[in-house]
């Protein structure tokens, strides 16, 4: 932190000002757009022909669309962790991370909503949810809490952005015409008076309090989509807590990955410091241990009893055809990251980045393992159906759409950092001033 003292407001503004894409940035954007376009093409095929283009069938009636949906909802929870929980707990070092967390939350929740519409057999009847919605269905609960969470997250992204918009509005010559337009629409009314700051602060604090229960709701309700059924592997009272803890882990993994990428791409070493990695590393270890704890509960307790319907399911996971993926998800998604991050040397940026990627990949496959194997172990034997109904491997359309949705979420984040400062300028300046005053 020593080098931060010499930073003056002009230097900070210059460092954190949104920058044009470099060559790597352009290539990255083009790749993402291409992946999105392929996904869109696959979706148009699906719209024309129906869900028959997927390899989902009557037994595996939910496939990677739904596991991808769960993944998105999970990762979006990090917005509430970093922004709200840290803010309410007065964690001062989290300032540069709040906007990263919040944009991850917003883009993930947007694509969670999109992917759930993709999974619908009749997307054109989406409005039926509002016309005929029945409150007793967990899907309606999900619609309510996810839209609530989306708007609160959007506000938590926007309100702290207002003072920065003033900074961006100061010199129109620095920005393109389009961006000036955007900044003016968003923040021309922001004068930065004491009154405005006070209201803004109060609003953010209120939202931070509200978002915590809402965040717990979105993932608990998502877990209930499974836990409210009778099926072995889903019929669990552990599911809400299990999902929420897993969500915080994958979200934190997402944040450390993004921290590393933004720091590298925009040379933000003075703002996202080694100290931030060090602290986030400790948090990730704690979250991974917590998730591991819930996994032990989720798998070992039923395995101790081996009830008949559970037995088949668990054996498939532990030693059967899903075993490689299962142990991959456990090892790579939890245990290896714990071993990396438990050591001080592991909490440096690069190993942290690797651990973050491992957590996210492990988490994606973990969601797949929660959704699909259960459906392949129905109560009654699989019989009187075509042979293809008894297995599941996603079709290329499903892979393309899933990849497209992931690329889409990354694209939102990419455009966001191009347009807005990813590290809050105003708050960073304020903090440095306060620190200087203390000295």
């Amino acid at each position: 932190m020593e080098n931060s003292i010499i930073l003056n407001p002009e230097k900070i503004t210059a460092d954190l000002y949104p920058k044009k894409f470099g060559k790597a940035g352009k290539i990255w954007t083009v790749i993402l757009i291409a992946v999105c376009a392929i996904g869109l093409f696959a979706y148009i095929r699906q719209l024309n022909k129906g869900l028959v283009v997927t390899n989902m069938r009557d037994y595996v009636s939910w496939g990677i669309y739904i596991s991808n949906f769960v993944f998105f909802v999970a990762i979006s929870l990090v917005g509430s962790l970093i922004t709200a929980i840290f803010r309410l707990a007065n964690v001062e070092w989290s300032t540069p991370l709040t906007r990263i967390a919040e944009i991850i939350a917003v883009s993930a929740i947007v694509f969670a909503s999109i992917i759930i519409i993709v999974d619908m057999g009749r997307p054109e009847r989406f409005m039926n949810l509002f016309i005929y919605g029945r409150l007793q269905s967990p899907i309606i609960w999900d619609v309510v809490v996810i839209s609530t969470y989306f708007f609160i997250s959007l506000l938590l992204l926007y309100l702290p952005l207002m003072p920065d918009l003033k900074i961006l509005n100061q010199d129109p010559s620095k920005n393109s015409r389009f961006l000036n337009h955007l900044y003016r629409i968003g923040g021309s009314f922001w004068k930065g008076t004491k009154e405005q700051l006070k209201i803004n602060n109060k609003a953010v604090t209120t939202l931070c309090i509200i978002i915590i229960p809402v965040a717990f709701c979105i993932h608990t309700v998502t877990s209930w989509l499974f836990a409210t059924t009778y099926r072995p592997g889903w019929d669990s009272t552990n599911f809400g807590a299990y999902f929420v803890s897993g969500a915080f882990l994958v979200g934190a993994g997402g944040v450390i990955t993004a921290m590393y990428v933004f720091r590298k791409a925009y040379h933000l070493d003075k703002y996202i410091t080694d100290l931030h990695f060090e602290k986030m590393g400790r948090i990730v270890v704690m979250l991974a241990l917590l998730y591991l704890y819930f996994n032990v509960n989720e798998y070992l307790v039923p395995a101790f009893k081996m009830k008949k319907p559970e037995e088949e399911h668990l054996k498939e996971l532990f030693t059967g055809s899903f075993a490689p993926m299962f142990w991959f998800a456990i090892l790579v998604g939890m245990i290896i990251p714990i071993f990396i991050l438990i050591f001080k040397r592991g909490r440096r940026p690069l190993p942290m980045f690797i651990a973050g990627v491992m957590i996210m990949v492990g988490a994606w496959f973990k969601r797949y393992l929660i959704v699909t194997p259960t459906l392949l172990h129905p109560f009654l034997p699989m019989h009187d159906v075509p042979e293809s109904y008894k297995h599941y491997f996603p079709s290329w359309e499903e892979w393309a759409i899933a990849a497209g949705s992931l690329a889409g979420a990354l694209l939102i984040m990419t455009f966001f950092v191009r347009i807005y400062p990813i590290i809050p300028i105003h708050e960073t300046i304020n903090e440095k001033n306060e620190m200087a005053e203390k000295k």
Partner: protein
Amino acid sequence: MNNQNTSRRDFLLTGLMAGLAAGCSDKKDPFTAAAEQETVASGEKVKLLSVDGEVVEVDKAFLKPVPETQHIFNKEARRGIPGKKFVMVIDLSRCKNLKKCQQACNHMHHLPSGFNWLKIYPMQEASHTAPYWQPTLCMHCDNPPCVKVCPVDATFKREDGLVLIDNDRCIGCRFCMAACPYNSRVFNWGDPELPADIAAQKYSPETSVPQKKGTVGKCDFCPDMTRRGMLPHCVSACPNGVYFFGDMNEDTVTNGSETFRFSDLIRDKAGYRLMDDLGTKPSVYYLPPVNRNFPFEEGVKMEEEMQAEKNKSSK
């Protein structure tokens, strides 16, 4: 008892009135005044037995057959047939996996090949217990997990006990399929490829025809048949009398040739329900496979023959 009689009489009267109304004219719409005038009494009378047991005379010109399928409005289809509580009993000792029930069901509901609302499972409780064939269809549960989770009321529970699907409303989320422990729901992943005249029909939850892309289908207990006082297709198609169908309020079930008191049958033959411990309260009861009419192996042979035939025809 009195109550039951009235409702039954009401039911018959409504049927008669509908018949008369429909018989008023050759024109499509019998409700216009002009339509009524056009029917001229022929003077030739026929004797009919009324529901009250009286013999009445009606002019022959007013007699027209009741149309095969009356249109049931969605609201009525969602309410159900008043005073009824449908129930099915499946006698496992009589089943040899002949699959006639399945064929009839698929044929009458115009299901594409590979789609079975009615499945016949080879079951074996434990490694040393004897295997048996178990026909399984929608259980029409009284505590239906599928109805609970449906976000748009596309699948619903009627007062006569049936669980039906309104596939003009279904959004295709497939939550009901995940919720149903009996896997009795089938999804139209692609276009069902129906003959044009079938596909053009207006969908009714009571006929479940036509099936539509992106929506869920399942066994409906054939309410279009029971409205006409007939048995569901699977019941009448089974040559071995496996299926008994009836009304719980009348405490009677029949397979077409034999009729039993439902409560006696269930008590004497130790009837049970599938996965009753889940609390779904199914409307389908099973009689255990004791003193079987056919050995299990016959069904296996049947299955193999059908498979071979299918392979041949697909080649």
